[in-house]
């Protein structure tokens, strides 16, 4: 129970910093960053084997943010886990900052793969899982996909390959928030029943509330205990903009940034959430 609370606190702090980053940059993608914050918090708080002092550790667990535009969420959790100073998050997207608009593994400690062009990250994650298994490493590879991203054909090449090679230490999280830049995913290009599609590709599938830390924790715990020869996908039903009242469920917040008033409202909501959680935690 104690661990669940600490995951919730971390998720709230990630959200708080997402808002700080996009407000400082006056650009960025808050909607999808907020929706995947709970999964990132869960993985980094409880499951990931990493050492922020040695980010190059070869047999580390790895995280690939295939939906690279949600970099604010990844940067926030990396800073909160001491890969780099929290205040650097305010340089997000600024000239000469190492925190570019999309994650770059060459310049940002803790970023395991450069991403940005959708559909490409999962191929890299499959390669990592193949190589790690060949080296007999005991590590896990996590990849985070957007639901709009599933429209990219390359995703399904990688999904097919992961099943073919039985990559049982590959865990995909589909951030199924149902919205993309132009509107509802179902109307832009319907990705259909995501769980069924992955099942048809011979993956283990867990469907849950992707903004519910307890459910995520149970799913990851199950995956870590399971004896399986298949990769696993967590299809997480999430809310785009989760945690900020006026952003929730609004596709317009895919790539918009808050003005000062909206920033203050968002910060006040998230600070209140953090305070509330930390009080409970005590």
């Amino acid at each position, binding site marked *: 129970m104690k661990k669940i609370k600490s995951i919730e606190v971390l998720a709230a702090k990630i959200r708080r910093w997402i808002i700080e980053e996009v407000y400082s940059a006056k650009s960025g993608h808050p909607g999808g960053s907020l929706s995947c914050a709970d999964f990132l918090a869960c993985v980094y708080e409880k499951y990931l084997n990493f050492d922020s002092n040695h980010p190059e550790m070869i047999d580390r667990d790895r995280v690939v943010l295939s939906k690279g535009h949600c970099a604010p969420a990844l940067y926030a959790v990396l800073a909160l886990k001491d890969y780099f100073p929290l205040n650097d998050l305010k340089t997000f997207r600024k000239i000469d900052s190492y925190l570019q608009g999309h994650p*770059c593994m060459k310049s940002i400690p803790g970023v395991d793969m450069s991403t940005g062009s959708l559909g490409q990250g999962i191929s890299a994650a499959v390669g990592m899982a193949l190589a790690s298994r060949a080296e007999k490493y005991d590590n896990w590879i996590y990849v985070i996909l957007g639901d709009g991203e599933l429209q990219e054909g390359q995703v399904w090449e990688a999904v097919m390959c992961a099943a073919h090679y039985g990559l049982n230490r590959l865990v995909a999280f589909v951030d199924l928030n149902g919205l993309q830049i132009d509107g509802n995913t179902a109307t832009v290009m319907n990705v259909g029943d995501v769980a069924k599609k992955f099942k048809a590709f011979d993956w283990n599938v867990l469907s849950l509330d992707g903004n519910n830390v307890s459910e995520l924790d149970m799913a990851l715990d199950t995956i870590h205990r399971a004896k399986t020869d298949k990769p696993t996908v967590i299809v997480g039903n999430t809310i785009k903009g989760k945690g900020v009242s006026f952003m929730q469920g609004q596709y317009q917040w895919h790539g918009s940034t808050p003005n000062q008033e909206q920033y203050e409202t968002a910060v006040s909501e998230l600070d209140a959430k953090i305070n509330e959680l930390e009080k409970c935690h005590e």
Partner: protein
Amino acid sequence: MLGEKLDPRKVFGKAVTDLAAINQSIVVFSADSGKSSGFGEFSREYSDRYFECGIMEQGIIGMASGMATVGKIPVFCAIAPFVTARPYEMFRNDLGYMHQNVKVVGRNCGITYSDLGATHQSLDDFGLIRLIPNVVILAPQDPTEIKMAVKAMIDYAGPVYMRIGNPKIPVLFEEIPFEIGKGRLIQDGDDLTIISTGSMTATVIEASKILEKNGYSVRVIGLPTVYPLDEELIRSSAEKTKRVMTIEEHYCDGGMGTMVCELLSDTKNVTVNRLGIPKEYGTTGEYADLLAYYHLDLEGVVQSAIRFILEG
């Protein structure tokens, strides 16, 4: 043995397989194309390092990138346009941008897949890949250079694109260490510098003999590395002969000839003539017929050189 004709794909595959015996990091990706790429022996000897992925070239580039982050040295060979033009963005983002230690080899390059038509010919691969920062481009000129180039590309820590052909090619050179970025002065001369790359160099060497017999003194430079160019050798040759003719199995636009023009753009009193394929979709037919059709056969090269020397 000098003059012996060998299959470039088999030479390439054997070179990788031989190195794999001493370098455990080498892995091979196949897009339903491994055996045609010369990896039959590798797939049998090192089945745990041979990854068949079926027909998904763009996905393989990404997977190779992921493997490289775990310390592997992936080698991926398939038909040239399918590993360059098709997965271009993956090449740029997953290999170039991250300077990943992945080796991509385009086989059946240029018009060597002559009878398969435009979809299978690669007349733009130099031009495409050279625009991706920091990717080495190799085009070895004979079987000996293929073998040595494979070793050099495996030893080099970073992304490499190498192109090889399909028909058997003659052994032109004795074995010497391959240095990335170094050209080869094959013959000295005063009237004209001919710069060639890949399998065209064999034709240029023959052409230079005919030109010599006809009283023309030709300086011949072979480039097994297209990027980075051997700037010093090219500049000094251009300054000496004032006339430079480039020859490649590639579009005249955007390839090695264009790179030479860019390099020499600030050199006074030098004229460059580029031979290659006009920017159009290639026709089909026998390889030798296509070379003649595009004036890249022995007669075409000789006539182009004489015309250039006489008419400027």
